[in-house]
């Protein structure tokens, strides 16, 4: 029994250290990979938002994060992933309080980017899913896992009309 526990402990520590290493590896993946071609050419001054995040995803896995969007701001949210997972990540946006579905990229031409203006401040839940499917093995990485990034950018909305600010 002691031997089994010892083996388990070794396996757990090996597995954990590998995972932690991979966690750090994804770090700011979103900063490097999620700026799309059109985004770079966009002259509007969107700024990086600290709520952006990257993480290691296994195929078929789901991850959720709760973020905040503020009234009077424009937001652009972009998801991206390493090519071994294919080139598409499914992402959905829910209202953080009611959990109503507000955006589903599978119903919007699988768009990897969603841009909107927030007219009220809200907590949003962003759910990212990497669909299951065939993947290619890449050196130094788990066969079925790769980095996924969510880049959030924002800017103060244009003031229009008489009632704005």
């Amino acid at each position, binding site marked *: 029994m002691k031997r089994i526990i010892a083996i388990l402990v070794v396996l757990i520590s090996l597995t954990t250290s590998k995972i932690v290493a991979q966690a750090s590896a994804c770090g700011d993946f979103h900063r490097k990979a999620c700026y799309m071609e059109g985004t770079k050419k966009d002259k509007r001054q969107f700024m990086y938002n600290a*709520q952006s995040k990257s993480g290691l995803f296994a195929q078929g*896995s*789901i*991850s959720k994060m709760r973020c905040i969007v503020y*009234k009077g701001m424009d937001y652009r949210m972009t998801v991206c992933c390493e090519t071994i997972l294919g080139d598409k990540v499914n992402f959905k946006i829910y209202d953080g309080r009611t959990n109503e579905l507000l955006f589903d990229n599978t119903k919007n031409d699988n768009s990897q980017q969603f841009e909107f203006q927030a007219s009220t401040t809200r907590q949003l839940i962003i*759910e990212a899913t990497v669909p299951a499917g065939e993947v290619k093995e890449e050196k130094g990485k788990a066969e079925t896992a790769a980095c996924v990034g969510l880049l959030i950018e924002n800017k103060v909305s244009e003031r229009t009309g008489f009632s704005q600010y």
Partner: protein
Amino acid sequence: MKKIVITTLSAAALSSVFMLTSCGGGNKSDADNIGADSTKVDTTAATKSNQSSTEMSYQIPSPKEMFVFIKQVASKNNKRTDMLNSPDNAKNYTDAKTQALNFGIYSCDLTYCSIFEVGTDMLKYFKTVKQLGDAVGVSNSISPSTVKSLEKNMGNPDSLVEIADDLYFSSFESMQNSQQGNILALSVAGGYIEGLNIACSLVKYDKKNPAVERIADEKYTLDNIIDFMKKYESDASVKETIAKLEELRTTFNQVTEKQEGKVAVKEEKGAKVLGGGSELEMTEAQYKAITDKVTSIRNSFTGK
């Protein structure tokens, strides 16, 4: 994390997703995490979004976002620094808790200086952030090249904002990656309170001032911060700090919520607009109560 004992690689990779949402909030269900009113639980929530036990990660906006907004709508020419924590106080922070809290505070002050283009003080704050960064174990995030870059770009406000912002993210990410969750939690709390303290100092109450609305909306950020910090509440310092933030949440909860219809994304003039739900309406008395509470917590952090 119990599932890590399953030793197949795919299971490990799957488990890693939970670790990587490392701002996660322990074992709470989605329903538990819904911050309505900030405390009421929507028990139907789990049936609407994915029903798996996926762990939630809580993201914290940086103070930059709020400062940029306030600068643009209310305080364009502001150059005040009297409400910041003086760099001279840094020598007083000798224990891990006050160092972490004030690392967050000075990082926020540095961001403020960069946004409001208070260049003369920026270098002082940068040096203080570096000094406390060394103390809390994120010295690697503040490289000598960053110092050079800062000095070189003193006349370039956009670059200074970028440098201050990079520093903010890299330090906090470094804490997260090096498993210093408790230090990160305290630093985030310090940065949040300092951001609110600065905002309340700059913005005079006016019901229709968008900056006042924005300060009321910081209630939502507070919800995320508290939920995030709870992961580390086994640490006594974190627990004490959460208790202070809970007091502030109680004050925020006095603010009236006005319903603005169903939450929805609508198409308006070719753009998608996210609207509906509730809006916060803060009275002058509530604004004062929040300001006083923030000042009191902030002073307890800085030892004023």
